[in-house]
């Protein structure tokens, strides 16, 4: 079974915000980036998957298990990393581990020890005395020590400096090398996804606005830059969004063929970054 997570028509209403018809699949051996601006609903979606919030409608299945009916069995196989590590702060890393390890059927102490060494985490230190980067590494360490098949991470790289972020991205990439595990991570730091993601899901205002394989999305879209004189009203049908400056016009198109024919050599063409895609698809034009 290649699909490790399937969310179908997930809906969740709050007073001033709702998730609408969230639909996506995650395959094993991949890293899927869940991108969106702050407040788009990424954390809400993840909390629904984890049954921390109860969805109004829709179904969520992970690793072949229903996320509510077989919640306990499922969480045994999930590596969960929340944006803030929730631990008893006064305990040391070792003490906290000794309390959490027994909950899992497949706790791997050897694996824990070797990754602990690799991350260079001080087991005797209190959790409240850790830096943000070390905290995140600790969360990932615990998530990786019980043979989890699916990793769900909510903003794991927020607030971390680029070097630590690079280390974490490397760790995630190594995780999926065996083609069995999968990583689902939400973030608003798009550069990380440019480097590491296989699939992207763009979320805005509670709805998915774009999803697919990262490279395919990049191949099918193009940033067009040209002078003001080139752009007119008719062309907006080929563009997701257009940005005018006093000196030039820039737009994101999802129809490469058409814009090539229209502008030919009068415009400059660039591959959109994940950030470009995010900005254009989430701008209230």
């Amino acid at each position: 079974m290649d699909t490790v997570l399937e969310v179908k028509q997930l809906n969740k209403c709050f007073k001033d915000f709702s998730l609408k018809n969230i639909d996506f699949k995650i395959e094993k051996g991949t890293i899927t980036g869940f991108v969106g601006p702050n407040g788009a609903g990424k954390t809400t979606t993840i909390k629904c998957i984890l049954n921390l919030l109860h969805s109004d409608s829709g179904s969520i299945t992970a690793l072949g298990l229903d996320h509510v009916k077989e919640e306990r069995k499922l969480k045994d196989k999930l590596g969960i990393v929340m944006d803030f590590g929730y631990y008893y702060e006064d305990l040391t890393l070792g003490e906290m581990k000794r309390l959490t390890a027994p909950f899992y059927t497949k706790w791997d102490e050897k694996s824990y020890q070797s990754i602990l060494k690799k991350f260079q985490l001080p087991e005797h230190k209190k959790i409240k005395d850790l830096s943000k980067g070390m905290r995140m590494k600790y969360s990932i360490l615990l998530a990786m020590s019980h043979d989890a098949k699916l990793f769900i991470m909510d903003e794991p790289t927020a607030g971390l400096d680029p070097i630590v972020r690079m280390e974490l991205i490397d760790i995630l990439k190594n995780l999926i090398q065996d083609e069995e595990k999968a990583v689902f991570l939400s973030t608003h730091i798009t550069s990380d996804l440019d480097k590491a993601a296989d699939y992207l899901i763009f979320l805005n205002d509670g709805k998915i606005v774009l999803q697919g394989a990262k490279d395919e999305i990049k191949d099918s879209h193009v940033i067009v830059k040209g002078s003001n004189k080139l752009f007119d009203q008719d062309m907006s049908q080929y563009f997701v969004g257009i940005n005018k400056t006093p000196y030039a016009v820039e737009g994101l198109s999802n129809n490469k063929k058409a814009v090539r024919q229209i502008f030919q050599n009068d415009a400059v063409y660039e591959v959109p970054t994940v950030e470009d895609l995010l900005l254009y698809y989430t701008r209230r034009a």
Partner: protein
Amino acid sequence: MDIIIVNSAEVPIYEQITRQIKDEILKGELKEGDLLPSVRVLAKDLNISVITTRRAYDELENQGFTVNMTGKGTFVAPQNLDLLKESRYKIIEEKLAQAVDYSKSIGVSKNEVIEIVELLFEEGK
């Protein structure tokens, strides 16, 4: 094997990989039976998505340049010798075209160029 990827709006990454591996096969730098790196390792080393490396390899297989043996990996397929010869000739032609263009522009005659070519072949021995 050299593979250099650029961010290009013209050529998708999978196609860049396909072309460059194809070139190496046609140039003879990759020989029949050579094992290519797995899609995973290639993706990791090139810092790109495994979906893209898989697509590149699928393309190579479709075009007959490689053969995928499940469990063992992707190997360079036996190449059509005529095709190989033809593409090699093409490369020689491209390189000579440069010399010829230059000679024309500075006024060196065809015979003088042929003399230089004969000297170069002599040096090889």
